[in-house]
């Protein structure tokens, strides 16, 4: 249990910074495009509120960090690191997430190099889906399930991260496909039944994009 040593201000007020580095990326599709798997209502909240807040809070934290660095204020720099990790991770994770989802396609499966690698490392696509699903459903509290690429060992792996810890910084794996299992990602539609959401999300997986990420990772 972590003791609250110094409480942060009441909210990290999203302030407009002159040097705003990070911006909220547009979705590659309309808010309703992922229906019926993920409702337009969820997509709007998820993108316009949650992701936008990570971007704003990241900019605020980074600006404070840069100020502290300029003054050689190491204490403040360290104090700000959890906020950068959380909001920066949130921004990274969601930026990838929007890309690896796409409107529902019939018979949606990966092909080419990614399909071959999945078969090699998991035995079959279905086995990978089972492993990734179980891991994602099993995340305690908030976090993400990932299919990641281990560059050293040249193989795909399933991993989970808690909260907004980004996959690469936390595990070294390069993200190929991810599932947000924070409750905000599914609650309004799937309520407490995370397993139904995780099962359904494979119908909107953008395997073409995942293959691109894989080719780049290799």
């Amino acid at each position: 249990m972590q003791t609250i040593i110094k409480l942060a201000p009441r909210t990290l007020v999203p302030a407009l910074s002159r040097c705003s580095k990070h911006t909220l990326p547009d979705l590659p599709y309309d808010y309703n495009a992922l229906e019926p798997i993920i409702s337009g209502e969820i997509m709007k909240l998820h993108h316009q509120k949650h992701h936008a807040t990570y971007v704003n809070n990241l900019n605020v934290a980074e600006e404070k960090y840069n100020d502290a660095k300029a003054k050689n204020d190491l204490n403040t720099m360290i104090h700000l690191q959890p906020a950068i990790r959380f909001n920066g991770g949130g921004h990274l994770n969601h930026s990838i997430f929007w890309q690896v989802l796409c409107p529902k396609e019939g018979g949606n499966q990966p092909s080419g190099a990614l399909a071959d690698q999945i078969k090699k490392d998991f035995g079959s696509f279905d086995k990978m889906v089972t492993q990734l699903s179980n891991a994602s459903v099993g995340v305690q509290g908030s976090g993400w399930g990932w299919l990641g690429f281990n560059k050293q060992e040249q193989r795909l792996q399933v991993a989970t991260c808690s909260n907004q810890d980004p996959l690469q910084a936390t595990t070294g794996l390069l993200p190929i496909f991810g599932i947000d299992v924070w409750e905000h990602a599914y609650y309004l539609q799937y309520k407490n039944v995370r397993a139904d959401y995780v099962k359904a999300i494979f119908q909107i997986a953008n395997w073409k994009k995942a293959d691109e990420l894989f080719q780049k990772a290799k």
Partner: protein
Amino acid sequence: MLTSVVLLAFTVICVQSQTALVLPPLPYAYSALEPVLSEHLMRLHHDKHFDTYTKKTNEALKTIMVDTSANEQLKELAKKPLEEILHDVLHLPEQYQFALRHNGGGYYNHKLFFSMLKAPTATAAENKPTGALLEAIEKSFGSFDKFRELFSAASVNLFGSGWVWLYIDAQTHKLVLNFTANQDNPIMFDKNHVVLLGIDVWEHAYYPVYENRRSEYIDNFWRIVNWPFVAQLYTEGTTKRADL
């Protein structure tokens, strides 16, 4: 052969009745906390989430009882009241700890939380503790408003899923604010912490009404805090521990 079957059935039944937790009903109607927490939200929170923690805790305890590789000490612990199990949960072997910590913690936290709530006052300002509890809060935080400000800030700023707690610290005997991640509870860290007040800041606790607006949920939470119940916990906690 029949005797052993009967004996086995008897043992299983005994084990089940010793360890089976029951989902307690809410101490009020599902709609009682409207408009702060809607009936829809309360039904989900109690009938789905709390129920799942109940079932899974029972499963986890049963698993320990029937596991032939689990030692006697562990099986004895599994028969104890949940609160006692949670005192030791962080010391359990990894293969048993995860399920018990998460689900047992979830059961314990929600049972406590729902009892800490009551029908809302019109405003947050008019809902305050009185007597010894108020004095203790003022002594520890300077003023009740300052306490509320700190508790609210901690709740807004908690990253991810977890709880914020007001409790009497086992070592210092002072009232402290702290947070736990996921379904952890202060008693997992020291059995003599006396928990007084908690707020669930998992998204499921507020999303159907407040969506992403956690701070709005927290602002309204103060309207539904059942201070007489919290005061009872304080009295019981300070009486049990003569040195407090």
